[in-house]
């Protein structure tokens, strides 16, 4: 109660005003008329009784009835939604634009009131308020008031976690906003012929494409306010999560509803964090640096034996997004410090703290979640395996980068000995981690004991293309550095052999498909996987280690090379007809090199 009172004091709408039934009737009429006309995407033909200026110029909405409030919130959301869609299409109805501007102008403090509605116990109202607020934030673009974001962040920090789902949802919707979601969701909007509309003029053509209509400005403002309180917010949630340690069965707890809502808030909080560090959110790297700082605290949770499976899974997802290996680190000259630090911590936890043993693969207690009465959570296992492979690849790339930058120093021989010694330590540590991973996967899945990692990753990830390709890139990068150095552990070369992965991958692709070439082209031209990086890496590997590749392919050499040759022909045609979405000449050149090497082999055989 006290908290609610303090909240009211901070809001400009503390003055309680009673409006009479006639005024309520006017509000209802306005909202209904607006909602009805918005479905036609034009507000030019409104009846005289409906004044655009008055629709959102209301006060004390928190005292309204539930139905009236829900109507009001959904019409606010719809107004911003239509305005954003029309802006993205390039033509906007001037009346819709005016109405959205009146709302954003916040003359009566209506936006602040909507912020306060987020904590209402009625889930319908808090949900509608959350959706409306996110749209208002995005629609306001450069007019976004910092005060709204500060109020929202304060709620995040002060309110109990059980009530925070709608607050978290606003942050998530705004930060994950992409124009694509509008374009995909609806085909071209048709406005009535008599609509008074205007063309949206962008001062700079490039800004129109890249700046997502000023949405990145909104995202930056939100992230800047949030980062000042983030450490405290993390601390609050970690404490709250610890209170769940002794309560594994949510249904039997004393306060089942509160616990379920709290549990949901924990999951949503981790998902929000995941979106913030995700490359897909398109946030500036300097802005998200701060959100990497507390990841180590989440790592501590994975060392506990009784963490809820869904929380475990979401923490693993958070780490997977933070370790942006195939999207960024693998192709960067100088890697950022933060993900490298996380990778080092992760490998340490797997090696010394038995993190894998705590993985709740099956329901129950004990190693990997107990007995073998169910099939287990394959997705959880896949995400965990990918995370460990990414962490190992990151550490190795970091060490190799450091050694190559120190190569230019004067005393090269001494340095290279030092680097070699360091690499030997890393190799032994990696070997240890990979052995644990191999044993874990073979206990969870029924793979043959002699199946090497390079082969089982394709079997394990075969139902998820994106992470299958990520894991294959990781094994190539690990093996190229570790397996081809002086005094390397011979076993590692067999375990991580990239050729074994490629052969298994092509075989898996051909199981249900007659035309493997079409599938490979889809992967290469689409942007939903890192296949471009994989094909570059594997073709370079084949070109540089041709004889080893031939030896490993054995009877599969002909079919593998036929696939690569078909790909070469298709790419050649596509490039000639200008049908590729980006420059694919480097891939074509590598394919030509492999093809030349193969022709040499064929000539010798003849």
């Amino acid at each position: 109660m006290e908290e609610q009172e303090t909240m009211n004091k901070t809001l400009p709408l503390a003055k309680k005003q009673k409006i009479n039934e006639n005024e309520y009737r006017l509000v209802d009429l306005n909202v209904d008329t607006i909602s009805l006309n918005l479905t036609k995407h034009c507000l030019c033909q409104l009846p005289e009784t409906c004044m655009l200026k008055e629709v959102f110029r209301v006060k004390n909405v928190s005292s309204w009835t539930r139905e009236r409030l829900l109507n009001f919130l959904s019409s606010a959301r719809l107004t911003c939604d239509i305005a954003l869609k029309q802006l993205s299409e390039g033509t906007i109805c001037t009346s819709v634009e005016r109405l959205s501007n009146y709302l954003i102008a916040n003359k009566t403090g209506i936006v602040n009131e909507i912020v306060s509605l987020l904590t209402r116990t009625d889930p319908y109202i808090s949900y509608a308020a959350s959706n409306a607020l996110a749209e208002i934030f995005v629609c306001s673009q450069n007019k976004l008031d910092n005060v709204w974001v500060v109020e929202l962040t304060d709620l995040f920090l002060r309110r109990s976690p059980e009530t925070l789902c709608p607050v978290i949802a606003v942050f998530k919707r705004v930060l994950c906003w992409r124009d694509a979601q509008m374009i995909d969701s609806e085909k071209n909007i048709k406005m009535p012929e008599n609509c008074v509309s205007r063309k949206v003029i962008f001062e700079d053509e490039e800004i129109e494409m890249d700046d997502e209509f000023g949405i990145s400005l909104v995202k930056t403002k939100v992230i800047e306010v949030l980062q000042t309180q983030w450490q405290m917010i993390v601390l609050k949630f970690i404490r709250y999560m610890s209170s769940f340690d002794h309560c594994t069965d949510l249904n039997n707890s004393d306060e089942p509803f509160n616990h379920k809502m709290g549990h949901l808030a924990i999951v949503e909080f981790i998902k929000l964090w995941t979106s913030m560090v995700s490359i897909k959110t398109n946030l500036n790297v300097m802005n998200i640096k701060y959100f990497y700082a507390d990841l180590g605290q989440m790592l501590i949770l994975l060392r506990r034996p009784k963490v809820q499976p869904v929380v475990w899974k979401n923490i693993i997802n958070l780490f997977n997004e933070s370790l942006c290996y195939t999207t960024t680190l693998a192709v960067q000259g100088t890697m950022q410090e933060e993900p490298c630090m996380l990778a080092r911590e992760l490998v340490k936890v797997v090696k010394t703290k038995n993190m894998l043993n705590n993985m709740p693969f099956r329901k129950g207690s004990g190693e990997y979640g107990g007995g073998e009465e169910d099939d287990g959570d394959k997705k959880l296992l896949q995400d965990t395996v990918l995370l460990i492979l990414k962490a190992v690849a990151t550490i190795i790339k970091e060490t190799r980068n450091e050694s190559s930058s120190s190569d230019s120093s004067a005393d090269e021989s001494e340095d290279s000995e030092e680097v070699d010694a360091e690499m030997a330590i890393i190799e032994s540590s990696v070997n240890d981690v990979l052995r644990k991973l191999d044993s874990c996967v073979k206990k969870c899945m029924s793979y043959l004991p002699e199946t090497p990692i390079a082969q089982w990753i394709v079997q394990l990830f075969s139902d998820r293309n994106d992470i299958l390709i990520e894991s294959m890139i990781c094994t190539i990068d690990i093996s190229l550095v570790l397996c081809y150095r002086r005094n390397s552990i011979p076993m590692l070369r067999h375990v991580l052999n990239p050729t074994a992965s490629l052969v298994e991958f092509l075989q898996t692709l051909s199981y249900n498909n007659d035309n493997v070439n079409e599938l490979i082209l889809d992967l290469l031209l689409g942007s939903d996987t890192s296949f471009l990086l994989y094909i570059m890496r594997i073709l370079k590997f084949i070109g540089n280690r041709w004889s080893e590749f031939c030896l490993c392919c054995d009877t599969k050499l002909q079919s593998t090379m036929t696939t690569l040759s078909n790909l070469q022909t298709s790419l050649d045609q596509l490039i000639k007809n200008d049908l590729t979405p980006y420059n694919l000449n480097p891939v074509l050149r590598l394919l030509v090199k492999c093809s030349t090497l193969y022709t040499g082999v064929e000539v010798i055989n003849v």
Partner: protein
Amino acid sequence: MYAVIQLDSENHRLRPKRVKMEFVCKYCNRTFNKHYSLLIHERNHLPTVNYRCEMCYKSFKRQDSLQQHRCGHSR
């Protein structure tokens, strides 16, 4: 995107050495030292592109598949 030219420390003159370039991602400001590395990275920022047939709204992952599909309409 900018270039840094390395100077010879002893002779203080330009060395015929490879010019070090830095390529900056326009979405997140991360830096890369090869143009193709930047291309590989930037593709992750883009939403998945689908090529849609304007006659039946069927969508394709590739432009050549759409062209092939269009031939079916004109028959």
